[in-house]
């Protein structure tokens, strides 16, 4: 066997099936566990009724409210966020051929959060997503103009992204403190993330942007494979590298903005998930995106489940959970497999 090479179809099917089953299990657990205790039959009863089956006695109004108005939108928003961040991380790592590329580490997430905070002041929760999408795109454009010479200066590019991110994180604070603090969520929401305010309405506003962004990113999977050969090689094979980079970054800006405006910045997902999927499914971007679309939601929904159940009844910011799990795991991965960083 040849390690991280293209893997057989059979192995891909096994891994994808495994990820899918694990995602379903995590979703089921997220419906069941929580501050309000429900029986499994109550959960199943509510969900069955929503798809048109009547199973058993009518569920209580309380069960219906908890399952359908609190837990379901929270899970859906978690899945949307997981897909958005994992695909964005995979695409940025591909386009910059840099394993440390991540939408939040490069400042696109914090930039979107500034827009989200300002957007909330101007237009409430719908303004938050619109503001974050616009600011996400603007930050992506700023980063794009900064990294023109990336072929020879990859390390500098990451440093610039990190500096941009730190500066913009401070601006999130300015936007929050300068605004009306009764209306704008606090700084720790924007910088550590959280799903406690997730609603169907929010998921409905965020989803279209994520669908568009994800379609653009996954549509670039073959071009990303070619870029893996090197920037000059990609040009020689007919790729307009400058244009493609701009398109990917704008798509990441839209995708990340749409979820940051809703749930804040959740770190490490875009960094870690693609690395794990690469180990499972190999380096080609088709399988990589497919795996990320399952493991991203699995990781976020699982982390949110931990965030709201670890210290019941207190809920901790989900970004603390993702960083606490993913940080050490990433270190272990990077140490074990020198290819992650080299």
């Amino acid at each position, binding site marked *: 066997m040849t390690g991280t090479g293209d893997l057989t179809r059979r192995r891909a099917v096994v891994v994808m099936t495994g990820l899918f089953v694990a995602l379903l299990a995590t979703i089921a657990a997220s419906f069941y566990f929580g501050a309000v205790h429900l029986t499994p039959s109550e959960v199943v009863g509510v969900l069955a009724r929503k798809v048109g089956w009547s199973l058993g006695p009518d569920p209580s109004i309380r069960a219906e409210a908890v399952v359908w108005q609190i837990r379901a939108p929270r899970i859906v928003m978690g899945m949307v966020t997981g897909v958005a961040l994992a695909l964005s991380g995979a695409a940025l790592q591909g386009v910059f051929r840099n394993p440390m590329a991540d939408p939040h580490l490069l400042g696109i997430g914090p930039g979107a959060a500034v827009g989200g905070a300002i957007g909330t002041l101007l237009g409430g929760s719908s303004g938050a997503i619109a503001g974050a999408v616009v600011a996400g795109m603007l930050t992506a454009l700023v980063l794009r103009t900064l990294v023109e010479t990336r072929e020879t200066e990859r390390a500098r590019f990451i440093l610039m992204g990190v500096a941009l991110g730190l500066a913009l994180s401070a601006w999130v604070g300015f936007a929050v403190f300068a605004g009306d603090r009764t209306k704008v969520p606090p700084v720790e929401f924007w910088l550590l993330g959280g799903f406690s305010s997730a609603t169907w309405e929010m998921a409905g506003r965020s989803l279209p942007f994520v669908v568009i962004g994800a379609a653009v990113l996954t549509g670039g999977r073959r071009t990303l494979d070619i870029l893996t050969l090197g920037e000059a090689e990609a040009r020689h094979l007919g790729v307009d590298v400058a244009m493609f980079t701009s398109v990917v970054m704008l798509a990441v800006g839209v995708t990340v903005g749409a979820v940051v405006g809703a749930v804040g910045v959740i770190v490490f997902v875009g960094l870690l998930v693609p690395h794990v999927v690469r180990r499972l499914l190999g380096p080609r971007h088709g399988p990589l995106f497919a795996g990320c679309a399952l493991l991203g939601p699995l990781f976020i929904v699982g982390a949110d489940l931990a965030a709201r159940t670890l210290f019941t009844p207190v809920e901790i910011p989900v970004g603390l959970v993702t960083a606490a799990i993913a940080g050490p795991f990433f270190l272990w991965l990077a140490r074990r497999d020198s*290819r992650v960083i080299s």
Partner: protein
Amino acid sequence: MMPRVSLRAASYRIGSATLVDEVTIDIGELEFVSVVGPNGAGKSTLLRLVAGDLRPSAGSVTLDGAAPSDMRPEVLALVRSVLRPDAGGGIPFTVRTVVSLGRHPHRREQTNSAARDAAVVEEALAATEIAHLADRVVSTLSTGERTRVAIARVLAQDTPIVLLDEPTTALDLGHQEATMALLHGVARQGRTVVAVLHDVNAAAAYTDRIVVMDRGRVRASGRPADVLDDALLSEVYREPIRVVPHPFRGSPMVLASRPLPKDA
């Protein structure tokens, strides 16, 4: 007939340095042309001008009449393929995947098909003698093997103009000869092949025309037997060099003739 590749007083300057200085060359189809010269002579820069990677500071470079640096990348990729020196270091894909990516420019062509892609890829793997490595990951291969993978990818791109920067430098003697013979055959199929080479003997044996560069300028251009002589090469390489006929090939053979240290 219009030449495939045409340079007219093409220059490339960066800052105060002139890397390519008023080079004029025409190259037609079926031609296998080598570019030789000392380090820093401007050979790679010349190749990059032809490839469209660089835009000439003055003069013109055209491929079938069009300036490559003005062509759309996807169109240019159907006209010329390029082998870069030291290609393929950290590529995590298998050999077959990399060679298949060479077919990317043809994906929207009416006449192309998955079957044709597969056939061209297999042919390229066989021609470069790497079929047995097809399922290996490129980053696990030796430098010479990686070079052959890159050559196979270039062949799979199937373009009328093939540009190669040091295709044989990392290869063992056997694979050097095989690669030179392969590129000669590629030219005879109706293509234009231009290769930057350090091995003047290989250039003299296999290429139709040899272009000798020094300090950005073309010092000589023509059939190896007409161009290569002691005075020119000794001057260009700043090293005593003699040219003798190859004992049985007949092509010119270049010999370093610096006196050896006493204890060598």
